[in-house]
C-alpha cells in the first residue's frame, strides 16, 4: 500500500476524534443522570 503512514494517521484521527466526542458525551449524560437522581429520585428516568 502506498502512502501508508498518511493513511494510517488519517484513519486514526477519523476514528479517535468522533470516538472522543462520543465517550465524553456519554460520560456527561451519565453524570447528569446520576446527579439528577441524587437531587430528585422521581426524575431519575427522564
Amino acid at each position, binding site marked *: 500500500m502506498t502512502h501508508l503512514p*498518511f*493513511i494510517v494517521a*488519517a484513519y486514526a*484521527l477519523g476514528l479517535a476524534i468522533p470516538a472522543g466526542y*462520543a465517550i465524553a458525551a456519554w460520560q456527561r449524560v451519565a453524570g447528569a443522570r446520576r446527579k*439528577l437522581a441524587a437531587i430528585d429520585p422521581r426524575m431519575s428516568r427522564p
Partner: protein
Amino acid sequence: MSSSSTWSLHRFANPGQFLRLSGAVLPYLTVGAVLLLAVGLGWGLFFVPADWQQGDAVRIMYIHVPAAWLASAGYTGLAVCSVMSLVWRHPLADLAAAEISPVGAGFTALCLATGSLWGKPMWGAWWVWDARLTSVLVLFFLYIGHVALVRAFDDPTRGYRAGAILALVGVVNLPVIKFSVDWWNTLHQQASISLTGAPTMALDMLWPLLISAIGYTLCFAAIVVARTRAAVMERRIRGLLMAKAASDTGA
C-alpha cells in the same frame, strides 16, 4: 412559518418531551453510525481499488470528504438553531447551538488535518493558502469563536444571543467554501459529486464514500443529541438546586 409548524417546534421546546424523544432515537443513531462507519471505512480502506494517479492515498477521502461535508452541514444546523433562538426564543435551540459548535469545530479540525495528510503526498505541502483551505480555516475559527462567545457572559441568555448573531454573520462563509473552487484558481480539486449532475467518480469509490458519509452524519447527530440531553438535564439540576436554596433561605 405557519402557526401549526411553529406550534410543533414549541412542542419540542418542552424539555421532558425532548428527553423522551431523544432517548428513543439515540440508540438507533448510535447503532446506525457504528455499523455504517464500519462498513464504509472498512470498504474504503481494504476493498476499493487504488486510484491510477493518487495511489492508495485516495483512501483518505473516506474520512476527509464526510468531515468536510459535516463541517458545513453542522454550521448550517448551528445557523438554523440561531434563527430559532433569535426569532422564536426557542430554549432548546440555544442549548443545541451551544452543543453543535464544539462538535462542528472537531469535525472541521478533522477535515483540515486529513486534508493536510492527503495534501502532503499529493501536492508536496502540508498547507497552502488556497481559497478552499483558507475558507475552511475561517469556518474553524467561527466555530471556536461561537464556543468562546456563548460561554463568555455571566448571563447565559446574553451569551446565547451573542453566539446566535455571530453564527448568522458567519453563514456568509458557507457559499464561499462551496464555490471557492469555481470562483478562484485553486490547488484543491473541484467537486466530484453534485446534486444536479452525474458524479465524476467511479461507482466502486462512490458507494463506500456515501456509506461512510451517512455513518459520520449519524455519528455527528448522535453526539449532538447526547450532548443536548446532558445540557437539558444539567439545566434542570441547576433549577432544582436554586429552588432548594431559595426554599432553605426562606425557611
